[in-house]
């Protein structure tokens, strides 16, 4: 009767009994937990997909540069002074001045138009400032603030900022993740309903046992306990199965992905769930199971009274 050890043994007993019941009808348990696993794996898979795409855009943003093409005829000293002005801004990491001469030299080296450029009398290129923003400042808002500041220079001809597609992709990903979160909530409700229903059926099939147990003095908490454990284990097994299914899909995708990746210089790869995320998935499954069992069984059980 004493405190903690009695509490522990009571729960261990109810838990083991519930697990035993699930394992004694393996097919039924596998079917029910597979439904749960798919409902959990689907949003988890979409989550993995969007986080991977986002990390890809993250790489792009970090190598981002803003190029300011100055108007023809702006002297080099003026360009240097503008560079100094840009360096003072918080979102700017570094500024490089590429003079018209340097630009022409680079162009000759890299473009293959060397001979053609020789034929020109004058250098057609303007001075260019190449600005690298800080990683922390690559949000769409601070980037457009920087862009507006640079475009306001009277000496600036064109400000080139190739972030628009990144921003578009980013907002699409935002939308998708919000959509997936909604989907996850709907599927979570589905998991609760599936488990609630399974546990409720189990309660009905064991009505005689429940009545006798109450007749000899079993409290509502006592008769409820094994059913709550049953729901918990449904969710737990479902969560583990979801991880297994997800890993299988990921493994199946590795080879085709490696082929794509080879074409892109081997930079692509899918990161699966982290350990914390995997734990969260299994934990969420268990919690949903517990909630489902409670909703399905608690009031139903309290209403079952022995009739004798």
């Amino acid at each position, binding site marked *: *009767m004493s405190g903690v050890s*009695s509490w522990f*043994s*009571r729960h261990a*007993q109810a838990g083991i009994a519930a697990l035993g019941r699930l394992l004694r009808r393996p097919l039924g348990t596998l079917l029910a937990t597979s439904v749960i696993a798919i409902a959990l794996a689907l949003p988890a898979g979409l989550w993995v997909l969007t986080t991977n795409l986002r990390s890809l855009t993250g790489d792009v943003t970090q190598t981002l540069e803003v190029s300011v093409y100055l108007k023809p005829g702006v002297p080099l000293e003026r360009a240097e002074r503008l560079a100094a002005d840009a360096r003072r801004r918080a979102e700017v990491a570094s500024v490089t001045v590429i003079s018209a001469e340097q630009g022409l030299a680079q162009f000759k080296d890299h473009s293959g138009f060397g001979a053609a450029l020789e034929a020109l009398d004058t250098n057609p290129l303007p001075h260019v400032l190449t600005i690298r923003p800080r990683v922390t400042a690559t949000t769409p808002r601070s980037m457009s603030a920087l862009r507006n500041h640079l475009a306001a220079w009277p000496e600036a001809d064109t400000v080139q900022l190739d972030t628009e597609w990144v921003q578009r992709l980013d907002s699409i990903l935002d939308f998708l993740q919000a959509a997936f979160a909604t989907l996850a909530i709907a599927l979570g409700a589905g998991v609760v309903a599936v488990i609630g229903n399974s546990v409720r059926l189990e309660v009905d099939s064991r009505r*005689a*046992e429940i*009545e*006798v*147990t*109450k*007749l*000899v*003095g*079993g*409290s*509502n908490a*006592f008769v409820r306990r094994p059913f709550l454990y049953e729901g918990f284990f449904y969710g737990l097994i479902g969560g583990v199965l979801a991880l297994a299914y997800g890993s299988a899909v990921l493994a199946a995708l590795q080879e085709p992905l490696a082929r794509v990746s080879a074409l892109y210089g081997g930079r692509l790869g899918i990161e699966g769930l982290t350990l914390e995320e995997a734990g969260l998935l299994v934990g969420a499954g268990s919690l949903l199971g517990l909630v489902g069992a409670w909703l399905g069984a608690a009031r139903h059980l309290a209403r079952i*009274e*022995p*009739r*004798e």
Partner: protein
Amino acid sequence: MISFEHVFKRYPNGREALRDVSFRVAQGEMVFLTGRSGAGKSSILKLVTLLERPTRGKVAVHGQDTGALPSRAIPAYRRRMGVVFQDHQLLADRPVYDNVALPLIVADTPFREIDRRVRAALDQVGLLGREKSLPVELSIGEQQRVGIARAVVGKPAILVADEPTGNLDHDLARDVMRLFKRFQEVGVTVLIASHDETLVREFAQREIHVQSGQVST
């Protein structure tokens, strides 16, 4: 130990099962509730086991007004009482041991203690050694004795039985009644509903006769 004071019981379907019933059962007494089936014996037992509540009047058990007990106190109340049924109410898919242990398990009794008391109870009803049998593997008389072992395993102060010999032939019925008598002799208050008048005469205990929902002692 058990007292009814002007108890009325009307069921939701309008049937008036008990009308102004008053009686007392003293501690350590063995009392038979007699009368035809449908006379109200079962209603009295249901009020004692708190399967039902009286419509009017007062039912006191263990010196406590049961009307003052909230529903959450009912499990603990039932643990202080052993109940035997005509159809024994055993769990068909559990062995004898589990059936007898059930009242101890719901009461959070330590395992060591459960083992000792289940064996003692089975010994008292002459079924030691049958722990692993399923109820269907036992005769009807043996099943009823398992039911009695389950009723007494928690060492209740009150033992209540509703037609415990209803399905048994006379010899088996007498054996079962002797068991009840033996529990009464060690201080348990015993209340048995039975319509078997021959058997009741044989044991010569106080009778409370129920007829059309009213009692005469």
